[in-house]
């Protein structure tokens, strides 16, 4: 059943990768890995959006997977027309001793992380508490509901079921169950594993493409060694999909600032839009991501063209999110308190103090590490490349990710729910949304292991990265 699930999931992964490939025609073999990494979010997000549209018109009827297979066939045909099969070759690995050690460590980390995920899934086959409270519950309603799938958004749900939450993860479970004709627990397990290991693959492929194999390996080892990322990532919730998408956006910003490839704007717009389809926090990210993209374009001559392509990518997820939020979903819990209570909370200084203490606590134990954040900051300043190239991208990304965290703090300030409970229940988890993206910025801005242990290779690295 697990292999069958993986087989079905390969279809959206193929669709996403081919869309990215068709839009971003970089022939570098390293770019192929990155395209696959970027295609994970694009493919699963697109199929989830299309399934939503399918349900509106054809709920209760099978046939969605056939449509996806046709879409995949069309994309394969389109991609193969421009593909030069003579260029296909297996790249030779000529590893330095540093790279060999790091790769061995990466293999070890991957095995340990995979073992942890399997152990956690055996212990909690339905995922973490929030998974069966929100995400898998919604999946059951949509799949079991058939023509009555919209019951999943009934206003009669008790408040803590959060029936207004976006549908990226639940719809993906539902359409794969429909394809397999069974409600197997392997599907949410495979889905959650794809986001978890997909984000590791994505950061690896992006740094391999832009920096070096050693740097890519180092970043992947750190992400795989992040205890809370592995536990949250195996809990079948929507936090890791959002983290994967925010990471993809940060990588796309980086690639765009290096290549100025206009087609990347469309992929960026689409990926930014998908964030709002993954979690409510992603809706805030749509605003921040769009403003950040505009900031990246400030010195651009063809600004209007870039923006129009970006908007072309953003429009589908945006329309569907708007339709879902305005037409189907019940109101969000943040509106429960009303304006007066919100203002009261905003002016209550004790709330800021409680939030500040919780964040300081996170500084000590974030990511399941002892003082991870100070360690990363020290690493950043100690190993900084000290060049100004790419500084606009770096500043934009850091500002975007920091503002995302600030928006979470703002939500904690105004929340009508008990503040301490909400902080204890969610702070470490939601900070993970920006964590892989911050790691990408960190490892894009620091010297590579190859440079550190073989200074003569500095020039090669510089050329490779264009950084």
């Amino acid at each position, binding site marked *: 059943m697990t292999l069958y699930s993986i087989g079905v999931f390969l279809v959206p992964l193929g669709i996403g990768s081919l869309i990215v490939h068709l839009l971003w025609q970089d022939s570098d073999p390293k770019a192929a890995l990155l395209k696959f990494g970027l295609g994970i979010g694009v493919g699963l997000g697109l199929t989830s959006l299309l399934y939503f549209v399918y349900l509106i018109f054809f709920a209760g009827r099978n046939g969605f997977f056939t449509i996806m297979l046709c879409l995949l066939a069309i994309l394969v045909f389109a991609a193969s027309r421009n593909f030069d099969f003579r260029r296909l070759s297996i790249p030779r690995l000529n590893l330095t001793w540093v790279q060999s050690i*790091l790769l061995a*460590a990466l293999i*070890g*980390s991957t095995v*340990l*992380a995979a*073992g*942890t995920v399997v*152990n*956690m899934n*055996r*212990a*909690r*086959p*339905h995922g973490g508490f929030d998974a*069966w*409270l929100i995400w*898998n*519950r919604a999946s*059951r*309603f949509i799949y*079991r*509901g058939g023509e*009555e*799938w919209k*019951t*999943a958004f*009934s206003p*009669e*749900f*008790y408040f*803590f*079921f959060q029936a207004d939450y976006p549908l990226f993860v639940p719809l993906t479970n539902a359409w794969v169950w429909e394809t397999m004709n069974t409600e197997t627990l392997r599907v949410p397990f495979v889905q959650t594993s794809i986001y978890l290991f997909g984000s590791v693959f994505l950061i690896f492929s992006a740094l391999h493409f832009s920096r070096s194999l050693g740097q890519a390996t*180092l970043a992947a*080892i*750190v992400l*795989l*060694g*992040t*205890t809370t990322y*592995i*536990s949250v990532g195996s809990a079948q919730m929507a936090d890791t999909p959002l983290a994967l998408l925010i990471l993809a956006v940060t990588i796309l910003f980086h690639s765009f600032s290096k290549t100025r490839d206009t087609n990347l704007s469309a992929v960026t717009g689409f990926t930014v839009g998908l964030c709002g389809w993954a979690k409510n926090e992603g809706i805030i990210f749509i605003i921040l991501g769009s403003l950040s993209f505009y900031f990246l374009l400030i010195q651009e001559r063809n600004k209007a063209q870039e923006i129009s392509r970006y908007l072309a990518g953003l429009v589908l997820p945006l329309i569907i999110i708007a339709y879902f939020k305005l037409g189907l979903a019940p109101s969000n819990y943040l509106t429960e308190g009303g304006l007066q209570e919100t203002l009261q909370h905003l002016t209550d200084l004790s709330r800021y103090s409680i939030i500040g203490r919780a964040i300081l606590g996170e500084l000590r134990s974030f990511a*399941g*590490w002892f003082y991870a954040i100070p*360690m990363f900051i020290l*690493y950043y300043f100690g*190993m900084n490349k000290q060049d100004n190239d790419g500084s606009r991208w770096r500043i934009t990304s850091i500002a975007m990710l920091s503002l995302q965290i600030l928006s979470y703090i703002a939500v904690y300030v105004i929340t009508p729910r008990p503040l301490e409970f909400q902080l204890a229940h969610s702070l470490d988890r939601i900070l993970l949304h920006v964590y892989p993206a911050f790691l990408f910025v960190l490892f894009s801005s620091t010297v590579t*292991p190859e440079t*550190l242990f073989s200074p003569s290779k500095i020039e090669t690295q510089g050329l490779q990265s264009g950084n």
Partner: protein
Amino acid sequence: MAALVLSALSYAFQAFNSTAEFDADGDDTIERWDERFAKLKEKLPVNHGVVGYLADFDVEGIESSLADQEAEYILAQYSMAPIVLARSTHYEWIIGNLSHQAYTTWLDSAVGAYEVTDFRDNLYLIHRVEP
């Protein structure tokens, strides 16, 4: 750099080691609840939509742990999908997840006429026959 790699490896190992001690048979709470509600679901003449949900924390005079009651409500809702369980008795069909004492207390104070099917294990299907 070495500190980063060694920290990451050691935390990855710790995570694996701590989860290796988890029960290999897994937590079957949800399966037990799915099973518990299976017969009631068959009897319920509603395949979708909203039905009422009544539990100890809704019955006046019955002491109960809020956390336990909420956890049971969430489990019940997960098992009963795609039927919405609304915490109200203003529906034609009501699912009672009640201890014996809570059930008798509710029955004594309930207004209207009801048909009740007892599924044992503190589970009742209540049909409101008169408003």
